Structures are given as structure tokens and as C-alpha cells.
């Protein structure tokens, strides 16, 4: 899978460079910038997740956000997801490690969805563009829909894995 990613990137990069070296340079600069920006939070999260997983027995993780934690675990996951600001590049590896150590699929899907679509911390910024009515409605709907996504992913994983 990774080789395919590299191949696709290489081909696109080649096409882009042939079409416009200038734009390609700009794209690469952007890529480097994103990478540099993401490095500190990524490092921090990886460190913290690694040590927490090593310290917390799988039983504890499972009881908080495991398959058996049910709706309580989903609520907990949704609150963490809504309140924190983590880029996906940090969240997915984290979800992977947690899934391997007892976290539930539905709970992780709820966490990832709320993380991406609901932003409590960014709400004031969003409201400065669209007003509070829009902001509250959008975030509220996204919050509730995240539980639907959790159920859908749980169902899909149950059927196919």
C-alpha cells in the first residue's frame, strides 16, 4: 500500500513539474511547511500515547473506551474529540495504537469524527465568519451525526473483519 502511495505521488509530482516547475516548487514548499508545523504536536502525541498505552493495562483502556464501554465510552470519546484540536495526522496513528490495545471501533470512529467536524475551540472563529446561529447548528448537527458514523463504522468492521 505504501509503495502505491509513493508511486502516485511520484507520478503526480512529475506531471506537475513538467507543467509548471514554479507551481511545483510552491507545492513542495507548502509540503515542507506542513511537515515542519506538524512535527512538534506529532512528537508530543506519539510520546504521550506510547507511554499511556504502556502504562495503562488494556483492561483500563477497554473499560473507558472499549467495545464494552458502550454508549458511555462513545460520549467520552465524543467529548474528547470535540474539545481537542488534533490534526488527523496525529489522530489516526493514535487511534491505531488505541485500537490495538483495547479501544472499541465505534468509540474510535466517534472520536475521529467529532475531532474533525466539531470544534469547540474554533467555534468563536467560525462564528466570526458565519455568526453563532450557523456555527451552533453546524457543530450540533455534526456532533449528533458522529454517533451515526460510529455505528456505521462499527457495523462495517463487524461485517467485513
Amino acid at each position, binding site marked *: 500500500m505504501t509503495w502505491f502511495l509513493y508511486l502516485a505521488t511520484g507520478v503526480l509530482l512529475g506531471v506537475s513539474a513538467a507543467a509548471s516547475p514554479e507551481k511545483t516548487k510552491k507545492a513542495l514548499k507548502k*509540503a515542507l511547511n506542513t511537515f515542519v508545523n506538524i512535527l512538534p504536536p506529532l512528537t508530543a502525541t506519539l510520546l504521550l500515547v506510547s*507511554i499511556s498505552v504502556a502504562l495503562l493495562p488494556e483492561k483500563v483502556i477497554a473499560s473507558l473506551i472499549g467495545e464494552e464501554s458502550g454508549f458511555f465510552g462513545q460520549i467520552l470519546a465524543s467529548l474528547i474529540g470535540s474539545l481537542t484540536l488534533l490534526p488527523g495526522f496525529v489522530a489516526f496513528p493514535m487511534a491505531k495504537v488505541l485500537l490495538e490495545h483495547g479501544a472499541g471501533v465505534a468509540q474510535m470512529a466517534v472520536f475521529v469524527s467529532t475531532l474533525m*467536524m466539531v470544534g469547540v475551540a474554533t467555534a468563536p472563529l467560525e462564528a466570526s465568519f458565519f455568526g453563532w446561529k*450557523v456555527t451552533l*447548528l453546524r457543530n450540533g*448537527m455534526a456532533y449528533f451525526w458522529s454517533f451515526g458514523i460510529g455505528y456505521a463504522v462499527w457495523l462495517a468492521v463487524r461485517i467485513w473483519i
Partner: protein
Amino acid sequence: MKVLLKKWRIAIAALLITGVLGAVFPEAGREALKLLGVNISTIIGILVPVFILLGLFDVWVPRERIAPHLGEASGIRGIVLAVLLGASSAGPLYVAFPVAEVMLRKGTSLRNIFIFLGSWSSMRLPMVLFEIQSVGPVFALSRFAASLAGILLMGVLLERLLGLEVRQEILERFEK
């Protein structure tokens, strides 16, 4: 130097916490180190191409020029375009707000704005590739599908609930 330190302070704090905990519980410390090694190597390996893809998308997909094709009468084609535009973008959601604002001013309908924002937040393609790598295709693709359904639904609902008044309000806010 100061800026660098500020940027890295969370990482440094995390390193200290991990170091202390690892020293107190050496067994967990060793385990954490092993986990860390595996995670770093896989993640960096995937991130490099993903970030290059993100950069390319960002440079080649002209958002503002497409905005007029996303107006009230754009129908299904407009919806598809809005989804694609959001999915081919780069950056966190708060970067999307100003972009959406420009699109709104250039004639994009409120429904398509919400679809664009939704797709930007949870369906970005390079991110989904990364997600497949991390948590597997079933998790990633079912989340993708469920998100798409929700985003379309929310776009239509929000437009119904808010209507033209709010659109006017938002536009006026920016003319100040």
C-alpha cells in the same frame, strides 16, 4: 530560537513526562520506547508523500474560480463539485472558513458552502489515504461513506433551516 522553543514546548513537556514515567516504571518505559519506534517509522514514511500530495492539490485546484459554478441553480453538479473541492484541499478546518467566505461572496449557495466545509473537515483525500494506512480500509472507507451521507444531509438541512436571511447576514458581516 525563542520561537522554536515555543513551538516545541509541548513536545519537550511530553518528553519529560514520558522520561520520568519511563524511569519510574522501567518495564512500561521499554514498552513505550518499542511502540514509539514502530509508530515513528511508519508514520513519517506515510506522511512524506501525503504532504507532497496535499501541497500539489493546494497549488493546482483553483477554488475561487470554481465558486460561481456552485450557485443556487447548480444542482447535483454543484454538490459533486463542492464535495470534490473540499476533499482536495489542505489544512485544518479553520483555514477553510475564509475560503468559504470568499466562495460565498462569489456566488456559491449556502448549501454548497456547508457541503464544502463538511467535506473539507472529514473527507480530505490525502488524509483518507493516511487513514487507510493507519486504521485499515474498512474503518476508513465506512467512515468516509457515513461522513459523506451526513455532510449532504446537513448541507440540505442547514440551508432549509437558515435560508436567504442568514446568507444576507453573513455577506453583510463582511462588507463592514
